[in-house]
């Protein structure tokens, strides 16, 4: 989250100052959006979740205790909304049948073994990342993209620091297997 989210700004938001909340939005939007986008893998869903998160943040600010970490609180709201989204989607799929946009794991082989350009490599990395489970994508987003310490990740996921480290480790291993497969290293 960007610098500038200070107690004074939060206090003004708690007093229903819309312009203060707009400033808060611009300071936090990318953090919230990245969690949602990396979790859902879909821009439209990420935008909807981001909107939902900020509305929840706005009305939740009244009960927010200033001594807690604001950024952790925001991340936690976002993560919980992501998991709710997943549950809703799973329920819908159970009723309506498999979603058309189910991710397919690309078949191995086909790409010749030549040096990939940076752009191609980045594209492979994105593909491999999107093929991970939602939980794996979430923990890697928190650790690698948002660069949060394990203590914050544990608070957000409501687990112990040891459990948070284990989840990150497993997600990294899962990513290693995927990217190795995509780059034909295995």
């Amino acid at each position, binding site marked *: 989250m960007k610098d500038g989210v200070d107690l004074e700004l939060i206090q003004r938001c708690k007093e229903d100052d*819309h312009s203060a*909340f*707009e400033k808060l*939005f*611009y300071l936090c*939007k*990318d953090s*919230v*959006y*990245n969690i949602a*986008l*990396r979790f859902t893998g879909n821009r439209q869903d990420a*935008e909807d979740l*981001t*909107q939902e998160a*900020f*509305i929840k943040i*706005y*009305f939740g600010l009244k009960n927010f205790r200033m001594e807690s970490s604001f950024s952790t609180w925001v991340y936690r709201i976002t993560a919980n909304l992501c998991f709710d989204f997943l549950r809703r989607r799973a329920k819908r799929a159970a009723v309506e049948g498999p979603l058309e946009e189910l991710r397919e794991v690309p078949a191995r082989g086909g790409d010749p073994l030549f040096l990939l350009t940076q752009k191609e*490599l*980045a594209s492979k*990395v*994105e593909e491999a*990342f999107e093929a991970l489970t939602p939980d794996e994508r979430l923990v*890697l987003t928190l650790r*690698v*993209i948002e660069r949060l310490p*394990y203590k914050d990740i544990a608070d957000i996921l409501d687990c112990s620091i040891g459990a948070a*480290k284990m989840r*990150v*480790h497993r997600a*990294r*291993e899962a*990513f*290693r297997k995927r*990217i*190795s497969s995509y780059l034909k*290293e295995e």
Partner: protein
Amino acid sequence: MDCNYYRALFSAFVDDELDEQEARNFKAHILKCKDCGERFKAFRRAQDLLLLLERKEAPPQLWERIEEGITRKEEPAYTFFQMLGDPSEPLGRRRELALIRLPVYRTGISFG
């Protein structure tokens, strides 16, 4: 300590979470054990690749949707005159309805 023990420490080493002695032991094992060395190299390479993931920017126009969502929830479900009810209705009935609608008017939250 066997190989499984050191492989479980890959992440901790990359995150600089091992203390000095643990880090020394880890490095010694990785240099000595060819299999673990290869696996750690692959693990390290994959973590470097993860850094290629871009941090995306949220579209700024999301603010309009959020502001609309907040404003919609803040507006009362009834206007002041709606709360007072239809003048043609009996006063007792209007008083009843006003009492029911007053919390909704004031807070925008409906329990009905």
